[in-house]
C-alpha cells in the first residue's frame, strides 16, 4: 500500500530513537510516523472490504417504490459507469443543475431511479454507534473502491465547479464559533499534529493528495466506513459550529477544494483511519 510504504523508513527511525531514549521521549518534529508500525501491522487487511461488498450488493439490489437498482445511476461518466467515477467527483451534473459529490449524487439517484423520498434518502446518512453501516456508507465504500489507482481529476470546467472550489477555499479559512476555529487552524501547516494525531496540511499538495485519496475510510474507532461528507461534518462539529448539512454547498465546496488540491493522486480508498 502506497501510503504506508512511503512512510516506512522515517517511521522505523522514529521508533528506534524512542526505543533508545529510555521509553517515552517523542521528538517534537517529524513525528507523524508514530503510528506507522501500528498501521504497518494491518497490512492489506482492511475491514472496509466487508463494507464494500455490502455496498456492491446494495448497488445491484432492486429497492424503493420503483423496485429498481442503482445500476443505471450516472455518477458522471455515463449511466452505470462506476469504475473511475469517484476520482472525478464532485462535478457539475446538468440533469440536477448543480455540483454534486458522490453522496448527494447517490441520493439523487435513489430519488430518480428508485423513487425514494428525498428527505428520507438523506435523513440518516451516517450510521450510529453499534449500528450496521448506512446505505450511503456502504455504497460510498464500494464506489470509491472502484476508483482504486485512478488519478484524482476533479473537474473545473463548468463555472459552477469553479464557484464550488472558490466557496470551499473561502470557507476553509473562515474563523467562527466560540473557539475561533477554521479548517486552516489545524490544516494549514506541515508536520504538525494534534495530540499524537498527524494533521495533514491541506493547503499543500503533498498532504492534500494523501488525505483526499484515502477517503472514504474505515474508521477503526468506529468500526465502519466513514464518508468524505462525514469527515467534513465531523470537523465542523469539533470546530464548535452548528451542524453542517448533508449535501450542502459548503460541504460540496470543501470537497471540491480538497479534490482539486489532490489533482493527479491515484485513489487509494477506502483507507484505514484512526
Amino acid at each position, binding site marked *: 500500500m502506497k501510503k504506508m510504504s512511503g512512510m516506512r523508513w522515517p517511521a522505523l527511525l522514529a521508533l528506534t530513537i524512542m526505543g533508545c531514549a529510555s521509553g517515552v521521549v517523542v521528538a517534537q518534529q517529524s513525528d507523524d510516523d508514530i503510528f506507522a508500525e501500528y498501521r504497518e501491522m494491518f497490512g492489506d487487511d482492511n475491514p472496509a472490504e466487508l463494507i464494500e461488498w455490502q455496498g456492491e450488493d446494495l448497488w445491484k439490489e432492486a429497492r424503493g417504490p420503483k423496485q429498481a437498482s442503482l445500476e443505471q445511476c450516472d455518477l458522471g461518466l455515463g449511466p452505470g459507469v462506476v469504475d473511475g467515477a469517484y476520482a472525478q467527483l464532485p462535478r457539475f451534473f446538468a440533469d440536477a443543475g448543480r455540483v454534486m459529490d458522490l453522496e448527494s449524487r447517490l441520493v439523487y439517484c435513489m430519488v430518480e431511479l428508485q423513487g425514494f423520498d428525498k428527505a428520507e434518502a438523506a435523513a440518516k446518512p451516517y450510521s450510529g454507534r453499534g449500528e450496521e453501516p448506512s446505505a450511503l456508507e456502504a455504497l460510498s465504500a464500494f464506489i470509491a473502491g472502484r476508483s482504486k489507482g485512478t488519478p484524482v481529476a476533479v473537474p473545473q470546467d463548468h463555472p459552477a465547479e469553479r464557484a464550488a472550489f472558490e466557496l470551499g477555499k473561502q470557507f476553509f479559512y473562515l*474563523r*467562527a464559533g466560540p473557539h*475561533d476555529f477554521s479548517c486552516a487552524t*489545524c490544516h494549514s501547516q506541515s508536520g504538525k*499534529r494534534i*495530540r499524537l494525531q498527524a494533521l495533514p496540511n491541506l493547503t499543500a499538495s503533498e498532504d492534500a493528495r494523501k488525505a483526499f485519496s484515502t477517503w472514504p475510510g474505515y474508521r477503526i474507532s468506529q468500526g465502519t466506513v466513514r464518508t468524505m461528507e462525514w469527515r467534513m461534518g465531523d470537523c465542523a462539529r469539533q470546530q*464548535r459550529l*452548528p451542524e453542517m448539512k448533508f449535501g*450542502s454547498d459548503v460541504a460540496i465546496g470543501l470537497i471540491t477544494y480538497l479534490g482539486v488540491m489532490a489533482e493527479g493522486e491515484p485513489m487509494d480508498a477506502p483507507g484505514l483511519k484512526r
Partner: protein
Amino acid sequence: MRTFGWVKCVGAAVLSTALVSCASTAADAQAQAPSFDDAVKSSFKERGQAGMDRLNRNAMQLACSVPADQSPTGDAAKAIQEQAQARVVFPADGEYFGDWKAGEKIAQTGKGMQYSDDPAEPNGGNCYACHQMAPDEIAYGTLGPSLKGYGKLRGTSDPMLQYTWTRLWNSHVYNVCSHMPRFGDAGILTEQQLKDVMAYLFDPKSPVNQ
C-alpha cells in the same frame, strides 16, 4: 447559550462583513461577501448548544479568515490587539493560582461547546491538543509551543503572571491572528478554571515543572 465578550463590545459591527477593510483581500471579500455568507448560512443548521449565531463573526474573526500570510498588519492589527487588551479581565481578588490538579484535568479534556457535548458538564481547555506540558504525557500536539517546565523556566514575577493570564484570556493581544482560543474572552473557561490552569503551569509541584 453563553454570551461572548465580543458581542457586547463590538455590537452591530460583528454582524456585517461589509466592515472588513483589511489588507489585500478586501476587494475579494467584499465582492463575494453577500453570496458567501448566504451559502454558509444555508449550509448549516442549529444543533444542541451550537446555534446559528456561532456563524456570526466578530472583527477579529473576519480579519483573520485569511491565509496566514495575509493576516492584518499595521493599524488594522493594532486595533484588534488593543481591543483585545482592553477586554482582559484579571482575577477580582488578585489571586492567580487555583488547584493544579484541577488544572491538569482541564488541560487533558477536549470536550465542551460541541453540539455533541452536554452543556451541563464543565468545558475542557484541551491544552494537550496543541502543547507539550508535563514531560511524562506523550500524547501532546505540536501546533503550539512546548510548555514543559513553564513556571520553572519563567518564574512567577507579576509581569509573567499577567502575561500568562492575558495569553489564556485572549491570545490575540500578542498575536493578531493567534490560533489559540480566547479561553477567558469567549467564555470557554471560567475564572476559577483559568486559575487552575495557571497553577498547573506555575506550581512547583505541578507535573509541568518536574
